[in-house]
Every structure is written in structure tokens, then in C-alpha cells.
């Protein structure tokens, strides 16, 4: 009985730690981070850690979760959710600013989905337009050459 009470006391003592652990759209914020801005759509904070430490923190947090993609960009590491989570991306900047590394977490949004879809649809047009131009040029060149050869043969 004494042990159970002890465990309950420990749990009660630890509970505020969990409840005070901040998160944005289900993504935990790194403890002791300094929030620069927080809105409905995104949160920006700075944390006194290196880029690799921040990346490791979020890799550990998201370990084993499906549909998570990590992209290494020149100026940042971009963690993206391709599943159905409330958040869309976590951007961890490489270059330290005054107080440490800047992290931006963005809410999943239709602007991104629609934007990328429209761009990709335009992309399909771009691919086929390029082919169209190439084929038109090729057609003109080849038919000119063929005509020349034919006229030479006739003469």
C-alpha cells in the first residue's frame, strides 16, 4: 500500500511537467525555447542548441511515425508530414542567430496543398509544352532537310 501511495505521489508530482510541456499542433516544443511569434498558422521559436541537436530531438520525437519526410536543404532541414497530422512542416534553420537556432512549425493548410497542386498541374503543361516546342522545331528541321535531299535527287 505504501508503495502504491509513493508511486501515486511521484505521478502527481510529475504530472505538471507533462501538462506544462508545450506543443504546437501536436509537435512538442523544445524545453526552454524562446518563442518569437505564435499564431494560428505557425509558431517560430529559437532554441539554444545546435542544428544537429534540434534535428535529433525531432527525429526522436517522430521516430517510427509513418509518412514523415526529412529534406536537407542548403539553409535548413525541412521535416514534412505527408500524412493526416495537424501540422505540416518543421523547419530547422542551419545558421545560428543571436540566441541559437530558429525553428518554425507550420500548421497543415489547404493553401499549401492547393498551391503545390496547381504548380504541379502547370508543371505537366510545362513538360508537354517543352515537348511541343521541341517536336515543332525538330519537325521543321527534318522536313527541310528531307525536302532538300529530295530536290537534289530530282535535279
Amino acid at each position, binding site marked *: 500500500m505504501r508503495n502504491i501511495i509513493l508511486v501515486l505521489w511521484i505521478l502527481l508530482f510529475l504530472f505538471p511537467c507533462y501538462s506544462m510541456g508545450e506543443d504546437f499542433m501536436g509537435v512538442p516544443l523544445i524545453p526552454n525555447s524562446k518563442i518569437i511569434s505564435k499564431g494560428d498558422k505557425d509558431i517560430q521559436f529559437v532554441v539554444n542548441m545546435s542544428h544537429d541537436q534540434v534535428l535529433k530531438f525531432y527525429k526522436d520525437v517522430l521516430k517510427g511515425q509513418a509518412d514523415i519526410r526529412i529534406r536537407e536543404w542548403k539553409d535548413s532541414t525541412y521535416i514534412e508530414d505527408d500524412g493526416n497530422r495537424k501540422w505540416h512542416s518543421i523547419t530547422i534553420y542551419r545558421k545560428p542567430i543571436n540566441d541559437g537556432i530558429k525553428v518554425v512549425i507550420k500548421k497543415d493548410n489547404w493553401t499549401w496543398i492547393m498551391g503545390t497542386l496547381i504548380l504541379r*498541374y502547370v508543371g505537366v503543361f510545362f513538360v508537354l509544352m517543352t515537348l511541343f516546342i521541341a517536336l515543332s522545331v525538330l519537325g521543321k528541321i527534318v522536313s527541310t532537310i528531307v525536302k532538300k535531299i529530295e530536290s537534289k535527287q530530282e535535279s
Partner: protein
Amino acid sequence: MTINEIMDMLKGILYTTGIFNFDYRVIVMWGVAWFFIYLAIAKKFEPLLLLPIGFGIFIVNFPLVPLMGYSHGHPELIEAFYHYGLQWEIIPCIIFLGLGAMTDFGPLIANPKTLIIGAGAQLGVFVTFTGTVLAGFTLKEAASVGIIGGADGPTTVYLTQHLAPQLLGANALAAYSYMAMVPIIQPPIMRLLTSKEERKIRMKQLRPVSKKEKILFPIVTCGIIALLVPSVVPLMGMFMLGNLMKESGVVNRLVETAQGSLMNISTIFLGVSVGATMSAERFLSWKPLFIFGLGLIDFAVCTAGGIFTVKIMNLFLKDKINPLIGSAGVSAVPMSARVSQLEGLKADNTNHLLMHAMAPNLAGVIGSAAAAGMFIAMFD
């Protein structure tokens, strides 16, 4: 030997039969299988694919059949076809090689502006993506469902296997079913979106295309696609290789194999493997049914997208394009081109649109591959 021992032995034997492991859900799947076998045999809807798919669904939906699992560490029969053929993304590419060896790109080379119709007809792919995300699918699943509207079986299989293999059976079945139903689905949409005058538009006869152009086409196309959408080069590279083999005229034996035996063997493995992925526990949920419903809308929007693209192009063109060929931008080669021809003949029985419609039809194949490439690039 006592009676109890005999009974135990009997029990042991009976428990290895399917009867004692029977699940009522398989009966529903038999119904689905028989329906597709019926469509293939009685209605002749895409029989080359629907028949093996139907039979694949049928045999995999029996309890304890050693077909889609692993025994003693080795893949069972259809699991081996599925693993090496589809999971390794080999079969769709081999089928594209065969398709390339069968295809004459002459109409497209003679009228390259129809490539734009092939792009316009991918509208449904992107619209469906949105609808699928709204319904709670993941982005990868949404992309794989969206591509159904491209009406290109191998591309659908390739993309789905790449992004959402759990939907392979449902997506492939929806794609091939709707491709088979092109003559039923497209004509009402075509008539609804075009006026009588538009349907009577006569198109200028296509110029003859030289052999040199036909040989250069696969090389140039492959190069451009490899530069712009490298993720679909396994598909398009094989497609263009098949076409180059055909047009070069120097490897007839290879062409015969690619468009004959190799293609037929791949089709058997593709059909039966896709069918076998549709076990009752996977198929009997809301997702496959939703995919079937949305696939139809996808197809309709793609058809409309092609027609609208022609209408927009006609605003700027001196030589007008008959909007009936816009619907052929949804691939489904050559079925949708034939539908354009038939609808054209209904409006004017001397107006033959088949060769004109073949151009956007082939552009649709390239367009849907480009769309698939865009999606792969989005997630890789």
C-alpha cells in the same frame, strides 16, 4: 487405437481444410471476382486484364491457400510474382516497353500542339487529389487515387506501388474497369460539353511524317522527360526504347518479342498479382469503395479537362480542332480515340477523327506519366 485418438486425427485433418477456417466475407469477394470475370468474358471489357484480375481475386479469397504469403521463408506463388514484378516496379515498365513497340507516334509528331490536350486532360488527376485528401486519405494515397483519371493502367500501378501499395488492388481495378468503360462514360460528357457545330468541325489532314522524325522522336522525348521529370524515366524510358526499336526497323525480332510474348507474360503476372492483393480483409472497407466512386468522377473531369483545353486552344487557332478529340487526352489507348471517331461520325458521317484523336490519346500517355512524375517528386 481409441475412438478419441481417431477423432483427434480427423479433427487434425479437418482443421487443415478451408471449411473449418471459412470466413463469410470471402463470399462477397467471390462475387466481385465473378463480376470481373463476367465483364471480361461476356462483355469483353478489357478481357486481357480483367480476366486474370478476376481469377486472382477468386483464388486468393479461400482460407489457407498458400498464394500470397511466405512459407519456410520463401514467397508463395503469387507473392513471388507480386514481389518481383510489382514491388520491384518491373512489370509496368515491361508493359510500357511493349506498348512503345506497338505505338505509332506519327499523328502526334504531325500535330504536336495536341500535346497540350494531353496536359489539359490531367485536370481530374489534380481535382481528385483534393477530394481524396478531404475524405481523409493521406497525401500519398490521394496522389495514387488521383492518377486513376489518367486512364493509364501501368502508370497507375507504378505510382500506386511507389506511394501507397496498400491501395494497389483497388486502384488498379478501378483504373482498368473505367478504361474498359470508356465507351459508356465518355460519350454523354462529350455531347454535354460540345455543340452540334463544334462536333462537325473538320480538321486539316495530317502531314506525312518521315522515318527520320519517327526515329528522332523517342530519343528527343526521352531526353526531355529525363531532364524535366526524372522520376518517371523507368516508365517513359522503356516506352521510348520500345518505340525506337519499332521505328528503327533493324531489330524486328526484339520488337516482336516486346509487343508479343514479353507483353503477354507480363500481363498475366500483372493481372493475377493485382487481383491477388484484393483479399477480403483488405478490400472490404470503405476506402476501395470510395476509390471506385471517386475514380468515376476523376475520369469524367479528365474527359472534360481535355474538351475544355481544345475549346481554349480554338480561341487562338486558325485551323480549329474538333473538341471531340479532347476527350482522347485521357490515354486509354486506343479506346478513347475510337470513341472520338464514333461520336464524330454521329455528328457528320463523313468526318473521320480517328487519326486526329490518336495524337491527344498518345499525348495523354505522356501527360499522365508526367503527372505521376510530379507526384513522385512531391514525396521522394
